[in-house]
């Protein structure tokens, strides 16, 4: 196997976010999250439920971008997705145009809400997802424009906002992981502020800190993000993403 690309390291880091999830619905939004979740499903998280992106749960793992239907094992139209969200038996990985140190996410708009400088996707499912079940984020373009001191609009609820609601309302809130093209983060700190968990090979703690617009919690020693195994590389290259879409999203 040739050396893993940065995108392949990211795919494994994303897969790791789903480790131990068991028999719940995993909803990865975007190509790299799709790839990572498929990798988790084919290796250490075989029980997670995934849809074909339309309305069906599929029992097998199709290559990314495949036009062939998968092996249907269940029906999951949007109404059932919403019920699953509110039941809590789901882990979503979303994107974020902005994210702050407590994991507040913005996908709504930039600037004044009444007349925004830039309209983004809208709230979509972010408020309901984050208050009801486990959420992770994938950020392919780590920069100070994304990792900001304060987000313009809170779509996905962060730890400080959740804490302010009290323990009852926040008891289902969990932001498991943030994976960027540079590093992996979690919130395993006393005040649930963002912590640098590992840096991808080829980058450094200094680079990550310099590209982040708020003070990160940086442990005394920061490990390197784990490299894909040969088996994982084979799955990524031959089975999950033979067209190499991953390397177009994240350049090495």
């Amino acid at each position, binding site marked *: 196997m040739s050396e893993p690309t940065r995108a392949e390291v990211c795919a494994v880091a994303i897969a790791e976010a789903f480790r131990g999830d068991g028999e719940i619905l995993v909803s990865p939004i975007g190509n790299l999250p799709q790839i990572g979740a498929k990798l988790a499903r084919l290796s250490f998280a075989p029980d997670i439920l995934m849809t074909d992106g339309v309305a069906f749960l599929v029992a097998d793992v199709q290559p990314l971008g495949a036009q062939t239907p998968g092996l249907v094992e269940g029906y999951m139209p949007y109404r059932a997705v919403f019920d699953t969200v509110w039941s809590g038996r789901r882990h979503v990985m979303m994107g974020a145009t902005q994210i702050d140190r407590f994991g507040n996410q913005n996908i709504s708009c930039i600037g004044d809400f009444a007349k925004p400088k830039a309209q983004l996707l809208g709230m979509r499912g972010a*408020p309901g997802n984050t208050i009801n079940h486990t959420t992770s984020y994938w950020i392919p373009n780590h920069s100070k424009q994304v990792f900001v001191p304060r987000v313009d609009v809170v779509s996905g609820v962060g730890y400080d906002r959740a804490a302010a609601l009290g323990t009852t309302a926040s008891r289902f809130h969990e932001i498991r992981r943030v994976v960027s093209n540079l590093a992996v983060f979690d919130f395993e700190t006393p005040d649930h502020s963002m912590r640098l968990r590992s840096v991808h090979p080829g980058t450094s703690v200094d680079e990550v800190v310099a590209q982040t617009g708020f003070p990160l919690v940086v442990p005394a020693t920061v490990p390197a993000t784990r490299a894909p195994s040969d088996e994982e590389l084979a799955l990524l290259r031959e089975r999950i993403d033979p067209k190499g879409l991953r390397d177009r999203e994240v350049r090495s």
Partner: protein
Amino acid sequence: MDKRTTTAEIVAELRDGMTLGIGGWGSRRKPMAIVREILRSPVRDLTVVTYGGPDVGLLCAAGKVRRVVYGFVSLDSIPLEPHFRRARQEGSIEAVELDEGMYQWGLYAAALRLPFLPTRAGLGSDVMKVLPWLRTVRSPYEDGEELLAVPALPVDVAIVHMNRADARGNAQFLGPDLYFDDVLLGAASRRFVSCERIVPTGELTREGSFLTLRIHRGMVDGVVETPHGAHFTECPPDYGRDEAFQTEYATAAREPEAWKSFEQRWLALDSEAEYQRAVAARAQEAKR
């Protein structure tokens, strides 16, 4: 009762300032033939309630919209509707931006004649800041939990597009997802279905299982046959999304000059029949 009608008769029910609910989801199974009829009408100042797609974009571009109630406005393969983006950034529409689940809950509350339904969705987010009229409610039981009270979202007129229907208004979806079309009809005072084909009642269960019959005639005031009427959104299994057309639409929407010529070619037509002829001719051209 024979409830067959025309798109013109449906649109004649709309008054300025009314709340219009539109079925489908993003760029999927949208009642576009009726939307195009609205574009030809003088109606304006609409509040549009929908999981939005090009329906919202077209109505905004034509200056027919005062307010949009939505969880998103997307073309699916193009994440953000370009006309909607412009309308928002120009501040020309009022945005009631809800969490997708809150939106469903509002329609459902209206359908059940309840003033609100409680949920956790929205708590802690800025949904409550940008919509300061939203209120919370405390559980009257021992838990005492405080929840967001999503107000009912009643609509004056609802329009949805289905694959099949009979003349009395029993309607059928043959694609993978009904979305929330039944809930939307439940939330509406006047309820209209456009469909690919009106068939004898007995044919409905021949093409799909009873599970596809989620909209019965008691939920419908009028039905109109509009073949290819969801174009350019998808209406599977009858047809997929016309991605080439959608790309042309979205590209034109980014440039006022380009939009003018798109409008001239596709929207300044006198009837849906003319539109469909032009679309068919375009498809023929592409094949050559």
